[in-house]
């Protein structure tokens, strides 16, 4: 009897743990099952040499060859079939990533993880990402190539989901006890909305308003200027070197009360989106691109290089592909898993890449509403207009509603109550547009002019599109919708929403976009700096531009040589030099020397200055001095801009609120400016006092934390790393503490968290035959146990690139380089 009872209890318990998750443990049955579970999933990761599958709706057979880098070469008879095949292949490699990114944008992560991710879901929905994506899809011309590609792509994804064997289920689904959802065209738009949020909401006015509330309007305007005070623009201004528009900063003034009030509202909003914004710590969502004309190329042909910087994740944000439709399309490069087509890449004649423009394409309006709790109407030009309402329901994995929000929208966009005020936001990314059509059209272009035409009506996020062709032309244009505002035209103010006179009055015509083609200098470069010299084009495009250290460095490298090779371009991408270090190291050393010669001997300062002076200003992994400079540079803004620090807040968040580094350089020209004075001390500090104190404090902190000078703790490789997290931030699926070359504001920036950086590096030589080299930090497979999950990571970390295979047809592919052939045939619709 006892044995029977024990057996019954054990059977019930084991069946329970087999079918149901218990605490953090997923159901054990489908996980441990060696025929259909995770173990079998490992066995399914190696592609067989030959495979066949069906996709409903295909017009003809599609042949796919997977090369030894895991890149699919898709040979289809028409574009729609090609995108069906692409959807199938990307889903096979990256299904979990596709759905995760989509859910993050759509605010439906709670359906996987419950209330612990409710905050993230609320963020996505309240900012209007879902509303914007739906609006955009509804405005789509259903006959457009973009829309048809969304449908075809979804058919391909769903074909893979339908024929997936249990063992093919990605391991993350098993751990979450979830199943893949059906893929719909809107999912592609959700992803693009999320990308727009990451790259296209660059309203720097929060910092300016905050400063206004602390030091008054004149000082705030000077610290967060509309125009960069170091001009090294994307559109060459003919000066041949950076121009320093430095003037003396006005002293801190009295706090402006209205700004303090607004600050409360904007701080709340930006707390939600701060994650996606750049910081001066060097963890920049910046990017680089440059191209040289035949006149500056060692080969006599144009060469183009690009490295967009984004969040570094495993799997990578990019998926590499090659699509061939004979006689029509032959394009290779990378696109986003979840969105059909190549975004950055090349065809037989043209190569292109992008950096983020960082322009100001959003505005806020204070609205007058009929009900301050739950508004139904808002005032416009003396008349009440209806507020659009949406009820958002958040569900847990069991499908139960766990929260409900009411969202409000005016004709401008999302309406939110922040610090007691109702503010609506207009954002160009929510305007009618068809970016996927723009990207798709690029693959068909045959020269630079056609490429520029194809991007003509691109909207958001604004991008510095760099293009080169085999005829030797190079061009760059900062393309996107730049709103024209009434009055002074500035976008870094909150406007009165009760009048339509505050609304945008149009958009900058494309003829006035920052642009250059085949400049006399023989090269073009962009690194998120202010795109055009305001002396040449005063149109307001944004403010508080990123300090142009990377732009200065790449321009300096390109100016220094007239015989650039593709390998030079590759080396430049991880160049360890720093314009920022070149600017600030001499300041520290000169201050220390002046102090010494003034008869104020200080042994700590002497040692620190000697070490800093021995640095070659290169952030190589073996450097034992770069860490000292960074320790001093950590101290410098906190000791200088004490007027902008509230209380004892010296966190990274405080740094985020501070002026750009170029403003410190500007201030250094006024050694006795009142800004140098630390109000927290009784003495009146000067520039040299602050520089010396920063250097000494940095040195002492480093000794305390890392040991004596020269010890291994000072090695740069021990101080800064790339940290590439899995999408679920599971350490076992992540690659952490990867030593890399580069530091804050180098061309391959390595900042504090190490979780952002060059997400794709590409060099394309536009000779008689296109040749390309590329790498990204990860691998083509999204399965953590796959040999192709992070097979490119070591080469990425060392700055190496891999030759990209670009065969014209299947016969042109070296059979030794093919690991698998897949034949996709038309199948019956479900």
């Amino acid at each position, binding site marked *: 009897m006892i044995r029977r009872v024990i057996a019954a209890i*054990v*059977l019930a318990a084991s069946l329970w743990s087999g079918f149901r998750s218990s605490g953090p443990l997923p159901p054990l049955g489908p996980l441990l099952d*060696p025929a259909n579970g995770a*173990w079998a999933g*490992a066995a399914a990761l190696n592609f067989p040499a030959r495979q066949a599958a069906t996709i409903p709706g295909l017009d003809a057979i599609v042949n796919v060859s997977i090369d030894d880098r895991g890149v699919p070469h898709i040979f289809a008879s028409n574009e729609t079939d090609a995108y069906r095949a692409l959807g199938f292949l990307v889903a096979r490699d990256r299904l979990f990533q596709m759905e995760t990114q989509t859910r993050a944008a759509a605010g439906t992560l709670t359906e996987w993880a419950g209330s612990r991710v409710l905050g993230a879901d609320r963020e996505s929905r309240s900012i209007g990402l879902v509303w914007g994506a739906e609006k955009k899809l509804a405005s789509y011309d259903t006959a457009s190539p973009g829309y048809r590609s969304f449908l075809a792509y979804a058919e391909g994804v769903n074909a893979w989901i339908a024929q997936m064997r249990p063992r093919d289920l990605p391991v993350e689904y098993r751990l979450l006890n979830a199943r893949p959802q059906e893929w719909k065209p809107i999912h592609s738009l959700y992803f693009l909305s999320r990308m727009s949020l990451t790259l296209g909401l660059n309203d720097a006015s929060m910092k300016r308003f905050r400063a206004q509330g602390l030091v008054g309007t004149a000082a705030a305007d000077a610290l967060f200027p509309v125009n960069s005070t170091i001009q090294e623009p994307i559109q060459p201004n003919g000066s041949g070197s950076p121009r320093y528009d430095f003037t003396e900063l006005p002293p801190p003034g009295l706090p402006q009360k209205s700004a303090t009030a607004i600050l409360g509202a904007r701080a709340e909003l930006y707390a939600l989106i701060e994650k996606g914004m750049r910081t001066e710590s060097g963890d920049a969502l910046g990017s680089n691109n440059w191209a040289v004309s035949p006149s500056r190329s060692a080969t006599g042909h144009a060469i183009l290089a690009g490295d967009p910087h984004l969040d570094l994740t495993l799997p990578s944000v990019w998926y590499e592909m090659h699509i061939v439709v004979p006689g029509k399309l032959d394009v290779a490069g990378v696109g986003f898993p979840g969105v059909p087509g190549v975004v950055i890449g090349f065809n037989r004649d043209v190569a292109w890449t992008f950096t983020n423009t960082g322009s100001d394409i959003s505005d806020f309006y204070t609205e007058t509403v009929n009900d301050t709790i739950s508004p139904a109407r808002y005032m416009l030009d003396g008349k009440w207009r209806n507020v659009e309402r949406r009820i958002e329901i958040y569900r847990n994995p069991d499908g139960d509603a766990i929260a409900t929000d009411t969202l409000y929208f005016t004709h401008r966009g999302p309406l939110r109550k922040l610090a007691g005020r109702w503010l609506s936001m207009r954002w160009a990314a929510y305007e009618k547009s068809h970016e996927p059509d723009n990207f798709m059209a690029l693959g068909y272009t045959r020269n630079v002019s056609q490429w520029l035409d194809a991007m003509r009506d691109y909207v958001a996020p604004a991008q510095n599109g760099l293009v080169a062709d085999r005829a030797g032309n190079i061009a760059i244009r900062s393309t996107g919708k730049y709103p024209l505002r009434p009055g002074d035209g500035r976008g870094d103010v909150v406007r009165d929403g009760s009048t339509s006179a505050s609304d945008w009055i149009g958009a900058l015509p494309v003829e006035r976009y920052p642009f250059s083609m085949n400049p006399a200098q023989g090269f073009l470069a962009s690194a998120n700096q202010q795109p055009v010299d305001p002396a040449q084009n005063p149109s307001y495009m944004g403010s508080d531009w990123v300090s142009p250290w990377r732009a200065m460095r790449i321009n300096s490298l390109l100016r220094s040589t007239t015989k650039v090779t593709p390998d030079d371009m590759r080396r430049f991408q991880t160049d360890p030099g720093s314009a920022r270090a070149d600017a600030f190291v001499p300041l520290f050393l000169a201050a220390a020397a002046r102090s010494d010669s003034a008869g104020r001997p200080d042994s700590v300062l002497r040692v620190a200055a000697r070490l800093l002076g021995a640095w070659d200003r290169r952030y190589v992994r073996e450097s034992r001095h770069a860490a000292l400079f960074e320790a001093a540079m950590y101290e410098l803004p906190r000791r200088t801009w004490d007027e902008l620090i509230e209380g004892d807040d010296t966190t990274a968040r405080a740094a985020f609120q501070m002026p750009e580094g170029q403003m410190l350089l500007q201030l250094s020209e006024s050694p006795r400016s009142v800004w140098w004075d630390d109000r927290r001390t009784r003495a009146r500090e000067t520039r040299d006092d602050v520089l010396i104190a920063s250097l000494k404090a940095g040195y002492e902190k480093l000794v305390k934390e890392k040991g004596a000078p020269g010890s291994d703790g000072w090695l740069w490789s021990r101080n800064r790393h790339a940290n590439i997290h899995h999408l679920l931030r599971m350490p076992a699926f992540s690659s952490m503490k990867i030593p890399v070359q580069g530091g804050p504001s180098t061309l391959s920036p390595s900042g504090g968290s190490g979780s952002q950086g060059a997400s794709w590096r590409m060099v394309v030589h536009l000779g008689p035959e296109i040749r390309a080299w590329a790498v990204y930090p990860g691998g083509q497979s999204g399965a953590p146990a796959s040999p192709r999950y992070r097979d490119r990571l070591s080469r990425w970390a060392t700055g190496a690139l891999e030759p990209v295979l670009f065969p014209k047809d299947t016969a042109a592919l070296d059979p030794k380089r093919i690991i698998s052939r897949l034949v996709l045939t038309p199948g019956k619709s479900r």
Partner: protein
Amino acid sequence: MNSFLKHLLLAEGFAVTTFGLGWWSVPVVAALWGMASADRFRARNAAFCAAVGWATLLLIDAARGPVAVMASQLAGVMHLPVSVLYLATLIFPAILAWSAAALVPSLTRYRRKAVITDPG
């Protein structure tokens, strides 16, 4: 049929039904075995055969893909030593098989006994 062959077939039965139907077939096969076998140690033997059946499948997986990598990653995610994960993969079917093979025959005997002793 000698005992070794019988148990070899049982282990293979566990492997084949797991492959064809899924992990939940383990207690079903064990229950059938428990009812059909008069062996005094049928529950213990069912457990052993289930573990052998799954071990065979695991070896086949290992020959075809990076099972060791998967094991170390899964163990990392679950904060377990790798060996525990392998052991769990063998113990889980063993427990299912033992409990089903021990419970079901005794239930059927209990029911048979109840029918015989019921005067109605």
